[in-house]
């Protein structure tokens, strides 16, 4: 009844052939073409002179040079959004996994529910919420008088990072949930039986330091305080650090226990890495948030790529920038995969 060994060996390749062919034609070859364009000269109108006739490395060097600010924005905003996603997402994932009980499915569902709404409409919603006549400014400006009358949130880095954090939070929560849920509860019980208790002082210190660092990162990254620290903004920086340290300390002190720091967290680390990568990648390449919620000074590299491709038709530079973005991301992932093995990311074993 069984097929011969030889034909059996061909089966997996036959099964994969159509799908892999599709990816070859519409993923690999397009990227090769993009690489060609990135070394080309010319425009849509004149046609492109591609390698091997020319190798215009200028597109890469000039591109990095001219748009370093946009790369910086992408990395800073993408990074801040990833950190914020982690800080919001970890307690949420932990809470769903360990305390979800009968609400577990509903809570998980609510985490992915935003995906059932159009990405653009969600961003438009943020525009409504953060807008000048929106509810948020209505509260903190008109209601509480915390900020001056012409204070804006829209058009600032804060709005962009806030938008990114929101859009990609589910990308953070789901992998975290899966890896936290996998943690063997017996290990935690064992730790507790061995007198792993609360970790108030340690948690408070760790949380406090983390909170302070976060606030420093936010203030510098969002441009509310210049790196040189002028007198007026120095006060803001110090106040921010104190607030960050205080909140971080309370949260750390009450949420972090010894069994958590010794057992749960280390075991969930692969999930943390996977989740941060899954959050960081779409965040760094996004341009919709910067476009709808940002200003000229908050444009990310995605905005440049988009504009150069679709508006200025400047394919060579656009292709070079896109290639740099992809290469950068793949390199960092490769580095990570080397450190931790590919299985966790590619789902070799689930």
């Amino acid at each position, binding site marked *: 009844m069984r097929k011969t060994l030889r034909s059996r060996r061909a089966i997996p390749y036959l099964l994969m052939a159509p799908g892999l062919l599709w990816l070859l034609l519409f993923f690999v070859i397009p990227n090769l073409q993009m690489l060609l364009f990135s070394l080309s*000269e010319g425009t*849509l109108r004149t046609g492109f002179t591609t390698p091997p006739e020319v190798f*215009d490395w200028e597109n890469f060097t000039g591109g990095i040079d001219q748009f370093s600010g946009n790369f910086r924005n992408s990395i800073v905003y993408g990074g801040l959004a990833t950190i914020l996603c982690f800080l919001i997402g970890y307690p949420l994932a932990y809470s769903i996994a360990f305390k979800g009980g009968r609400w577990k499915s509903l809570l998980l569902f609510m985490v992915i529910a935003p995906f059932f709404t159009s990405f653009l409409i969600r961003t438009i919603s943020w525009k*409504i919420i953060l807008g000048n006549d929106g509810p948020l400014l209505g509260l903190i400006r008109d209601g509480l008088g915390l900020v001056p009358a012409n204070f*804006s949130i829209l*058009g600032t880095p804060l709005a962009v990072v806030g938008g990114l954090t929101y859009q990609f939070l589910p990308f953070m929560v789901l992998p975290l949930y899966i890896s936290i849920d996998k943690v063997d509860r017996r290990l935690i019980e064992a730790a507790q039986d061995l007198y792993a208790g609360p970790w108030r002082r340690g948690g408070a210190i760790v949380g406090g330091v983390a909170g302070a660092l976060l606030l420093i990162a936010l203030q510098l990254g969002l441009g509310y305080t210049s790196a040189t620290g002028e007198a007026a903004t120095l006060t803001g920086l110090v106040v921010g650090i104190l607030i960050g340290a205080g909140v971080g300390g309370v949260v750390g002190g009450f949420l972090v226990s010894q069994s958590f720091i010794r057992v749960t967290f280390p075991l969930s680390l692969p999930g943390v890495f996977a989740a941060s990568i899954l959050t960081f990648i779409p965040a760094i390449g996004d341009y919709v948030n910067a476009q709808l919620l940002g200003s*000229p*000074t908050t444009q990310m590299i995605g905005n440049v790529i988009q504009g150069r491709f679709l508006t200025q038709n400047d394919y060579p530079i656009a292709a070079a920038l896109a290639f740099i973005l992809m290469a950068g991301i793949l390199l960092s992932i490769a580095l990570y995969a080397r450190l931790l093995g590919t299985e966790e990311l590619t789902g070799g074993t689930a």
Partner: protein
Amino acid sequence: MNDLDSLIRKAPVTRRVFIQGTTLAGVAGFLAACGAGSSPKPTSDAITGPLNFANWPAYIDLTEDESSSPTLTDFKAKYGIEVNYKEDIEANEDFYATLAPLLGAGLDSGWDIIVLTDYMAARVVRAGWIEEINAANTPTAHANIRDELKGLAWDPDMKMHFPWQSGATGVGYNLKSTGRDLTKVDDLFDPAFKGKVTMLTGYADTFSLVGLLLKAKGDISKLPADMSYEDAQKVHDFIKPYVDSGHVRKFTGNEYLQDFGSGDTWAAMVWSGDLASSGGEDDRFAFPVEGTIIWTDNMLIPKGAKHKGAAEAMIDFVYDVKNAARLAAWIYYISPVKGVADEIAKTDAVLAANELLFPSAATAKNMFPQPALEDADDIKWADLASNLEGA
């Protein structure tokens, strides 16, 4: 940046040249009417549908419930063909990007009429991507076009294009937000409006208007059309600090309309007709004292268009004074058709006196065309603009 394309681009001519060319235009128009020259054969003179018409948003009259356009309805009734009217043009450059590979490869773009602003129209005409308009099929248009619109360097005798509407770039504001009337370009830089100001993408509008401001201040000696790269650099250097400080919130196309209602934009560089039709009761347009920028959007028939006859019929149709008046009364831009003011005055004297549609002699004197750039400058200017826009 290696934008070789720009090397071929020839800038649109200034208004002064239009007028100088007018006399020539008559002669050349006559020659064109006789079918002189080695022009390629029109695809077809027969009026067949559907007419595929690409235009900018909010650029055609609508019925009360906004479900249809009386102009298109009448056109369909008159010629018995369908019109596939799409508001697909959001920016000259974006639309060009969809056309260029097709027309460059000698393929049909799928459109029978497209509408592009002067500089982009010149670019596609020079590229040889546009069909000649048969003068025999467009007698009304030839008769009724306003004289000062004829005689452009890139199409001196109306063989390639007919204007759809002209408009002005000036200062728009929401009276409730600003709390006062704005009258100057300089008002856009009032510190009170920090973070609530938007400008237009590209150099054509923003650099021209701010150029007029700097001219009024004495920093620049030339009008926008004659500005040098050094002048453009001055404009850039003037705007840049306002961008960095967050005073200028955004560079936009039509999108500035979004934020007037929500109070996120208080004052902006805008196109004249847009605010009038935006529906916001506190939205105002000002012809700034420093001067206003004027431009024209033009109907063109792309090479290989399948329904060229229908396209010519449409061009002729909208140059009929009654039809033109109906369009102008809804769109609120400046009609290219002679006698529209008189036609509108018959029914609506207030509208006929509206400066947005019919600028007074004084306003018209203070209107200036966009820069007429030579090739190398275009690239450099575009880079200055892109540096301001941050992408």
